[in-house]
């Protein structure tokens, strides 16, 4: 009210006081700002944190009670006495000694520690004529007196106080006032609060600032009791609760209720804790007694001075603390340590202390909740469950523990290898599977670890026992007899067991004896003509499977490769290596045998050579790259020779020759086969040819010329590709190695010329696709390879042969979009550049 009562015509804070209206337009700061703020000295902010605490200020942690010095002064006598009494009679409390020792440097109560201060306070108290023995009278009188005191203290407001008032108005109070540093502003706060308690929120900041001016710091202390006494009774608990973060004075003034409030309020579920977890409260000795403190009621409304006096008297009269005549003294005395402790704490420390206390209470509550079902299961029960789980685990993994990682690979091949190739989603494929149990145990141990630490009596031991038990369980599961059936004597049926690996067979078909089967088989084979296409096909497929089986054995064998030999290898390692090599050799021989490469070539046979027949199946083609990895160079060359010799009987060539001039006459299946061949066999062949000397290339080309129908082969993609590989390799050899054997080169040139002459009439027929089809790159590649090695005269013949195609392609690509056109022209240029021309010249 006083704030609005300002009679200044140009009130710079008018706009500010209007803020609670929520009218945003009125808040234009530039309009109301008159530069007063610039005069403020803001240079001493450096120690604000020391003063106010570094934590951000909130409504809760600021609290509402700031008259620290005044409040403290009121009960400083008590404080002093209690402190002295305490130090005299009791050993220092063990609780929080470090925190407490930290406190005094900041509390600002040092001056009150001065013993000489107390008499002055008492003298001041007597000014009011408050009879120590007449509390009721005091209560009656005080409201009036306080009103009078307020009335006489108007119209003097320092800049600091105005500023403080502003802060009190602002939504976020920046200052967390402390009794020492910001004495005046906090006083004002306090006063406002004390007077407005019944409706504190509404009238916050519109108190009577004028009164504040008249409240000198310590000398005025005796006034405070009145303010306090004027509080309505019902307002007090709330007030105490609000002032919790900065309650030094409050606590001292009304030691019991406040302390009790503090301890009741801070934990989240107060009732549960105080009841169910007495030990949490017991960690501070006082609160429990506070709860039982009979003085609580009297302490609330009683004037403090009386309180203090009575107390002093009680102290004086008293002999032992447990005197029966003073019902409240013992408890009072016992409580003293607590407020004093709290008092000695700084703001932050106390906040931390309270927070910690709350935490502790919360935890205790949690433990209580958790421990409700404690002891429901005995350790034996738990072990039993664990064993069941582990057994489940052992069987769920298909018993891969049985023979180690190799068995895991056998049982779970796809998953293990897939994980290895594409990144394991879970465990490392080569991780020993027995680690399953280990991992499981480790996790369990980790989870129960803390508890084990808390109960060192049985924890670790228990875990150990469980580990052993689990170990035994796993072993037992492993050792379990693999009987799949149990025939009880005299029974008609049998009981079959199943596990994850071998599910219970629902159908039990008796397998005919293998010898019988073989007889039948041979009988059937005998009854059929030897070279029937079906039998043939079956045989080929069987051959391919044989190859794959051997390949897998080879690959398995390679995984078991013993460590590399070096000089220091011991004999057993050497022997191991030798055995390994031997086995590898035999496997290689077996593979070679199964590939049927060395089967005699029978040119007149109606059926294809077994090896070539294999290549006619997709899986035969797919086997080639894997086979090439495991055979030596000589064997590769042999295979290559076989392919070249049988070129025109390869399905990808024989069936891929365009029958009509109509493009796209190839069936989808043939196209797929061609594609597959190009992806599997060609790379292997290409890789081998690219390492071969000229002699071999010449020999291969000679075979092609001699054994195959060149015009036919050249009209297929695969045939032309193979030719391209051969020719370009020879050319590369010549270019990279100028001093090539002239005789060899001469031989090559003979073959080359022969090929050229054979192909020349068919040059324009090489293009089997329509002009619009961009799939002709392989032809241009072949032409380029031919052109590079050709003599000028041959080049000319080449150009003449494909001139039409070149011109057409150029013409077509002009009509094409830029990108496609450049691709097509690029293809043509492959050839044109090889003979020293460029498509651009044609333009």
């Amino acid at each position: 009210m006083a704030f609005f009562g300002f009679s200044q015509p140009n009130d710079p804070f008018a706009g500010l006081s209007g803020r609670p209206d929520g009218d945003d337009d009125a808040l234009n700061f530039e309009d109301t700002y008159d530069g007063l703020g610039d005069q403020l000295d803001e240079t001493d902010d450096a120690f604000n944190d020391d003063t106010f605490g570094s934590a951000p200020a909130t409504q809760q942690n600021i609290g509402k009670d700031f008259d620290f010095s005044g409040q403290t002064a009121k009960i400083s006598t008590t404080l002093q006495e209690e402190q002295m009494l305490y130090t005299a009679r009791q050993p220092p409390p063990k609780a929080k000694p470090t925190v407490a020792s930290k406190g005094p440097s900041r509390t600002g109560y040092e001056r009150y520690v001065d013993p000489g201060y107390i008499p002055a306070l008492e003298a001041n108290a007597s000014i009011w004529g408050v009879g120590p023995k007449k509390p009721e009278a005091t209560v009656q009188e005080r409201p009036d007196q306080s009103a009078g005191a307020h009335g006489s203290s108007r119209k003097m407001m320092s800049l600091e106080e105005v500023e403080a008032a502003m802060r009190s108005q602002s939504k976020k109070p920046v200052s967390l006032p402390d009794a020492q540093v910001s004495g005046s502003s906090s006083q004002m706060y306090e006063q406002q609060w004390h007077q407005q308690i019944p409706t504190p929120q509404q009238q916050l900041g519109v108190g009577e600032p004028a009164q504040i001016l008249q409240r000198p710091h310590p000398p005025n202390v005796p006034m405070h009791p009145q303010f306090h006494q004027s509080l309505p009774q019902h307002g007090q608990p709330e007030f105490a609760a609000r002032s919790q973060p900065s309650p030094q004075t409050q606590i001292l003034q009304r030691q019991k209720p406040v302390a009790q409030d503090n301890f009741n309020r801070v934990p989240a579920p107060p009732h549960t804790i105080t009841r169910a977890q007495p030990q949490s409260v017991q960690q501070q000795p006082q609160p429990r007694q506070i709860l039982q403190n009979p003085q609580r009621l009297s302490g609330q409304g009683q004037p403090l001075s009386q309180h203090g006096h009575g107390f002093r008297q009680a102290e004086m009269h008293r002999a032992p603390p447990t005197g029966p005549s003073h019902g409240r003294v013992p408890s009072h005395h016992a409580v003293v340590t607590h407020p004093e402790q709290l008092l000695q704490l700084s703001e932050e420390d106390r906040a931390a202390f309270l927070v910690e206390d709350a935490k502790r209470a919360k935890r205790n509550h949690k433990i209580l909740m958790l421990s409700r079902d404690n002891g429901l299961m005995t350790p034996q029960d738990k072990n039993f469950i664990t064993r069941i789980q582990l057994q489940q685990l052992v069987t769920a993994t298909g018993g891969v523990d049985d023979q180690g990682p190799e068995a895991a690979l056998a049982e779970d091949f796809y998953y293990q290898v897939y994980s290895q190739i594409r990144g394991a989603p879970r465990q490392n494929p080569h991780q020993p599977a027995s680690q399953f149990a280990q991992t499981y145990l480790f996790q369990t141990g980790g989870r129960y670890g803390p508890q084990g630490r808390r109960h060192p009596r049985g924890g670790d031991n228990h875990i150990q026992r469980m580990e052993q038990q689990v170990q035994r369980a796993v072993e037992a599961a492993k050792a379990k007899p693999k009987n799949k059936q149990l025939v009880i004597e005299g029974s008609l049926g049998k009981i079959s067991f199943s596990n994850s690996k071998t599910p219970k067979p629902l159908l039990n078909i008796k397998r005919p004896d293998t010898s019988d089967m073989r007889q039948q088989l041979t009988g059937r084979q005998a009854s059929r003509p030897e070279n029937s296409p079906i039998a043939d096909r079956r045989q080929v497929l069987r051959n391919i499977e044989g190859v794959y089986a051997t390949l897998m054995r080879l690959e398995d064998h390679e995984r078991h490769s013993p460590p590399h030999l070096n000089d220091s290898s011991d004999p057993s390692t050497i022997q191991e290596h030798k055995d390994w090599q031997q086995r590898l050799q035999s496997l290689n021989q077996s593979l070679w045998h199964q590939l049927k490469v060395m089967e005699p070539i029978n040119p007149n046979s109606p059926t294809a050579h077994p090896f070539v027949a294999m290549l006619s199946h997709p899986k035969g083609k797919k086997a080639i790259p894997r086979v090439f990895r495991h055979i030596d160079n000589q064997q590769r060359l042999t295979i290559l020779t076989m392919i070249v010799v049988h070129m025109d009987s390869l399905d990808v060539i024989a069936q891929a020759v365009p029958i009509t001039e109509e493009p796209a006459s190839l069936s989808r299946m043939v196209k797929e086969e061609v594609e597959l061949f190009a992806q599997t066999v060609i790379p292997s062949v290409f890789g081998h040819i690219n390492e071969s000397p000229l002699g071999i290339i010449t020999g291969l080309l000679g075979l092609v010329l001699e054994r195959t129908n060149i015009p036919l082969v050249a009209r297929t993609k695969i045939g032309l590709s193979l030719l391209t590989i051969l020719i370009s390799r020879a050319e590369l050899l010549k270019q990279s190695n100028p001093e090539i054997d002239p005789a060899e080169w001469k031989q090559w040139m003979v073959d080359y010329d022969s090929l050229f002459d054979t192909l020349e009439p068919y040059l324009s027929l090489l293009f089997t696709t329509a002009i619009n089809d961009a799939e002709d790159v392989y032809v241009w590649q072949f032409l380029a390879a031919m052109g590079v090695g050709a003599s000028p005269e041959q080049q000319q013949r080449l150009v003449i042969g494909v001139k039409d195609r070149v011109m057409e392609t150029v013409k077509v690509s002009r009509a094409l979009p830029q990108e496609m056109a450049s691709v097509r022209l690029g293809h043509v240029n492959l050839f044109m550049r090889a003979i020293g021309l460029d498509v651009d010249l044609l333009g």
Partner: protein
Amino acid sequence: MLFFSFFKTLVDHSVTVELKNDISIRGTLKSVDQYLNIKLDDISVVDDLHYPHLSSVKNVFIRGSVVRYVHLPAGSVDTALLEDASRREAQQVTAKAKQ
């Protein structure tokens, strides 16, 4: 074990499980066991208009025996490896049969 092994690699992939009662459920494969029981997450029924009672179901556990088909994401199947795995399985079966 081959199918178990195979389906394990499809964990966290999106599959469509067709049940023997003609319901097709699409979802993320969360786990599979040796009975080929299947756990799916984030499911959606393919023909959800016909099965409104499933519209609010988010995840399912399907007993392996009621599965008719599992539609696989082709990209996450390694055919060559699968072929080899089947060969191994077949070899093991014949080896066991001979015992």
